[in-house]
């Protein structure tokens, strides 16, 4: 086990700058999720840590050792790939034992370690099968088994659940967390799915366009997003963004809609500045004397009701956790909790509320 430190890491593919100077500190034993939209460079960053991509600039440390220019096989890491990358012609036990075989480990040691990993993952009965004879979830486990057998300093996961169906994904999510609790190896996990990030991570790194947008615990990111990108990316359904300015101690949206401001906001300081008002759909309540709007869309799932309201030309999405009866084109009044409102500077995208 080891800490991982990434200092000003850069990666260029020709003229294209994919990673543009990333700094991340990962403590020993921590479960860190790199999350971001497609093309943000998260997988590239992981492959740089793994040694599968050259580092164009900056340094990567595993423990005290700088590994930026070491070959993958000398970094003492294990990686689980999106498509599992199992050896198709080898049985499950050969797949898991391959790294040990390359290290010329003894037969006994190899069998012991493979058996141990198999029992952790419940693969005991599948050891003689070939990968093509396994289901997606089983292959995923074998890929993890291969990593466990190595007993590496760091586990790297590259979108390991994206090839599984929704139900299995939830199950494997739990299993990977349980595995981490049990083994305690430092883990870096890449995903584009923010729900996966929120549910699994000790710490989330939000990447966008090759830069770190914010690093924090899942709840920090949810409660206090640093900027518009993180605010829009974390949380599902996405946060409502309403453009406008502060006038007379109120937030005036472009269409004229007036919205309550959080307390303690130095309103005068932002007079005339173009701002973005952010409120999460789940922080909106039905309230008799609130803001009036017309229902444009209703989706009920039983446990919750998702609705789109038109409030003076401004679309506002709401998520009601209680079951309320609303109809298309019906009028509905909503209330916002000002303490859960986020205000961002439109020009810089940065959070402005203390």
């Amino acid at each position: 086990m080891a800490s991982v430190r990434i200092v000003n890491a850069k990666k260029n593919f020709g003229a294209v700058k994919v990673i543009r100077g990333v700094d991340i500190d990962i403590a020993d034993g921590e479960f860190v999720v790199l999350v971001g939209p497609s093309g943000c460079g998260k997988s590239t960053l992981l492959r740089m840590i793994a040694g599968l991509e050259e580092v164009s600039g900056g340094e990567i440390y595993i423990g005290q050792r700088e590994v930026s220019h070491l070959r993958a096989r000398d970094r003492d890491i294990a990686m689980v790939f999106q498509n599992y990358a199992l050896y198709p012609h080898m049985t499950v036990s050969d797949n898991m034992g391959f790294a040990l075989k390359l290290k010329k480990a003894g037969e006994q040691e190899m069998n012991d370690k493979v058996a141990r990993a198999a029992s952790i993952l419940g693969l005991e009965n599948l050891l003689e099968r070939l990968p093509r004879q396994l289901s997606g979830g089983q292959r995923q486990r074998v890929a993890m088994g291969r990593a466990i057998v190595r007993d590496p300093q760091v586990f790297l996961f590259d979108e390991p659940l994206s090839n599984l169906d929704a139900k299995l994904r939830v199950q494997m999510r739990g299993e990977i967390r349980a595995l981490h609790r049990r083994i305690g190896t430092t883990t870096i996990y890449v995903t584009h799915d923010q729900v996966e990030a929120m549910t699994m991570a000790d710490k989330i790194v939000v990447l966008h366009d090759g830069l770190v947008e914010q690093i924090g615990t899942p709840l920090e990111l949810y409660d206090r997003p640093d900027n518009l990108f993180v605010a829009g990316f974390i949380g599902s359904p996405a946060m409502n963004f309403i453009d406008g300015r502060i006038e007379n101690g109120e937030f005036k949206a472009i269409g004229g809609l007036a919205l309550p401001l959080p307390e303690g906001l130095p309103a005068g300081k932002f007079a005339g500045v173009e701002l973005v008002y952010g409120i999460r759909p789940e922080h909106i309540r039905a309230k008799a004397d609130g803001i009036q709007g017309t229902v444009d869309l209703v989706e009920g799932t039983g446990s919750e009701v998702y609705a789109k309201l038109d409030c003076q030309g401004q679309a506002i999405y709401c998520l009601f956790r209680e079951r309320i009866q609303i109809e298309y084109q019906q009028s509905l009044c909503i209330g916002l909790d000002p303490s859960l409102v986020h205000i961002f500077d439109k020009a810089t995208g940065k959070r402005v509320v203390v």
Partner: protein
Amino acid sequence: MISTDRAVPSYRLAPNYRPFVMPALIVVCAVIIFPWAFTVWMSANDWTLGQARTFVGAENYINLALDARFWESLWHTIYYTALAVILPLFLGTIAALIFDEQFPLRGFLRGVFVMPMMATPVAIALVWTMMFHPQLGILNYFLSLVGIEAQGWIYDQATVIPSLVIVEVWQWTPLVMLIVLGGLAAVPREPYESAEIDGANGWQKFRYLTLPMIGPFLMIAVIIRTIDALKSFDIIYAMTQGGPGTASETINIYLYNVAFSYYNIGYASAMAIIFFILIVILSFVLLIVRQCTVWSQAGDGK
């Protein structure tokens, strides 16, 4: 006007599909079953063309077993086939690994490399015969440049078969290369990344990943090459006619001589039957071996 409500006929013919297979059946009988059965029948007769035919039962087979020239030609066939399979397989695999990499002019060079396959065997034979010529041939000239003494090539009993195999290798290595290249294209790339992380070096990646994964394709190449080499006739006949003496006489050449030089149809038929059985046995063995190397098929039928 055509009436739309037709009366349903009161009788129906039972459907009979057999006539539809007749054309295919006739062709198969004419070109496969009949010649085969006729060969078996001929092999049981002492029959020289233009002379009387007498039924002799298994006598031709007994004579064959006692015929030293037959055994010698069988050995030549095996020797020739083994070399003509192993060498192209080895060289073709290396060529495929090279052409699988990216380098300038790859497409052009690959085209050049497969050109020998397109040439006519008899033309190849004539050109190589000239190149093999002990006094006038270019090969001995090249050898003299590096200080190696002149060889007899196809004019020497000791070197005639390896020399013929050189021609075979020259012509058919590209075929093996194409097959293996196809295999390499079908090999997934991801396992190489896991192998890199698992600590494999270049040789280990080849030994434990590439080789087993292209195994099924190598076996296809072996099967094609084996069948081709066993029935090889044109190049040998055009270059040496089985000579010097009988030093390059394979079963095919011997069979041809018996049938069409000596007109001993019965004896030649017996030889053909034995040869046929050998090829069938060998094909089965190769197919079984191939089955063992398959890793990619969905569902293994167990």
